[in-house]
């Protein structure tokens, strides 16, 4: 009998989710396209005035990326619940929090990372100054894992329900308000030539905390949500 080792289990879960994402690579492209198109709609809806667009560029990119992630979040556990493989994961003799951390990592790699890669393009389309771009990317690198982690906890809570992603949006908003404020604050400060390190540092601290606590909370939430 070959005992299952913890590293092997982690690797297997991560690998599984990445493989599944790859099999559906069309779906990876979707958040990116969604963000692209929403960013495209704004000039149509607001009129193509460069100064106005530039003024709102940072904020619109942030909100767009956030919405795109929100859409993808909903699917984080859905298929696993539907086909019963989440039950199997919960029943496996491995620390659930760690397994879920792997799933969250895979989710971030497949949804947030592509969004971060195209963010400069979006920002460029809305005429964000090049100098601010670095700060925007840094802010996204801090903010998106936060969203993945917080989102995972909430998705786990809704795991036992048949609700759409809307409820998730409602629950996530209060949690992501601080994240958006800090991220947008950093970008705005950079755009005005003010120091922007403080908000980024705050985000970093919060991220470190979330990295430790969110998987545990996620596991607890999942056990509550499945017990019906």
């Amino acid at each position, binding site marked *: 009998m070959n005992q*299952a080792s913890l590293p092997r289990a982690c690797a297997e879960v991560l690998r599984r989710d990445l493989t*599944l994402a790859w099999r559906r690579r069309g779906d990876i492209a979707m958040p990116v396209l969604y963000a692209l198109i929403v960013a495209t709609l704004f000039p149509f809806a607001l009129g193509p005035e460069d100064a106005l667009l530039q003024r709102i560029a940072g904020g619109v990119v942030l909100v767009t990326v956030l919405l795109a992630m929100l859409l993808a979040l909903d699917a984080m556990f859905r298929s696993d619940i539907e086909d019963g493989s989440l039950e199997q994961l919960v029943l496996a003799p491995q620390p659930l929090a760690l397994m879920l951390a792997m799933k969250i990592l895979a989710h971030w790699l497949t949804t947030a990372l592509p969004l971060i890669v195209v963010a400069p393009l979006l920002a460029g389309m809305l005429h964000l100054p090049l100098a601010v771009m670095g700060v925007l990317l840094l802010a996204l690198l801090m903010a998106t894992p936060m969203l993945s982690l917080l989102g995972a906890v909430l998705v786990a809570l809704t795991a036992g329900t048949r609700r759409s992603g809307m409820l998730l949006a409602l629950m996530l908003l209060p949690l992501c308000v601080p994240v958006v404020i800090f991220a947008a604050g950093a970008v705005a400060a950079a755009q005005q030539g003010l120091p922007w390190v403080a908000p980024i540092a705050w985000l970093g601290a919060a991220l470190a905390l979330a990295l430790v606590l969110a998987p545990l909370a996620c596991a607890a939430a999942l056990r509550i949500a499945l017990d019906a």
Partner: protein
Amino acid sequence: MTPTDAIPLLQARGLSFLRADEPVFGPLDFALHAGELALVEGDNGSGKTTLLRLLAGLLHVGEGELRWRGRGWNRDERAGDVLFLGHQLGLKMDMSPRENLRIAAGLHGTRSGRTAASVLIQVGLAGYEDEPVRRLSAGQKKRAALARLLLLPAVLWLLDEPYANLDRAGIALVNQLLEEHIAGGGAALVTSHGAVSFHGGEPKRIRMHG
């Protein structure tokens, strides 16, 4: 033949599950020893599925008491000892049977001397190892899920209607799996409506009604 003097693997005393404070099934008392098979019998809606999900640890005990190897009923005690196969098979539709087994093996470990390939041949999926599960028929999916039983190490099997959707060869396969498992000192709880023709002795019966 069954070692009733030994500490039972699983023991239930006055067990029931409450939904909206109403018991779904009456208080149950039973004990299951290593090397025993128990058939869970009852009409449609009598609570068989509920019982199995409870024993798997997905639902929490409503009233009564459960013991595992004579000790308390908590997750760490049972870790790795229980395999559950429910109405939902827990297969990823976009992956092949082989890949699905590989993941399960990563989480649970494997029995010595078993490999995904050999196990898939044994359940009759030779030639379908690398087909996405989505493209398999209802019975083939069931077989892919059954392969997990062969590959993973576990003492107690909880099988919810394992015979459904299977043809005669498939039913014979399930019976053979059960016999080998019992003979090897495992235990199993099986719900089923069909007649289970079991060679290694008369199985225990757990009646859900009355």
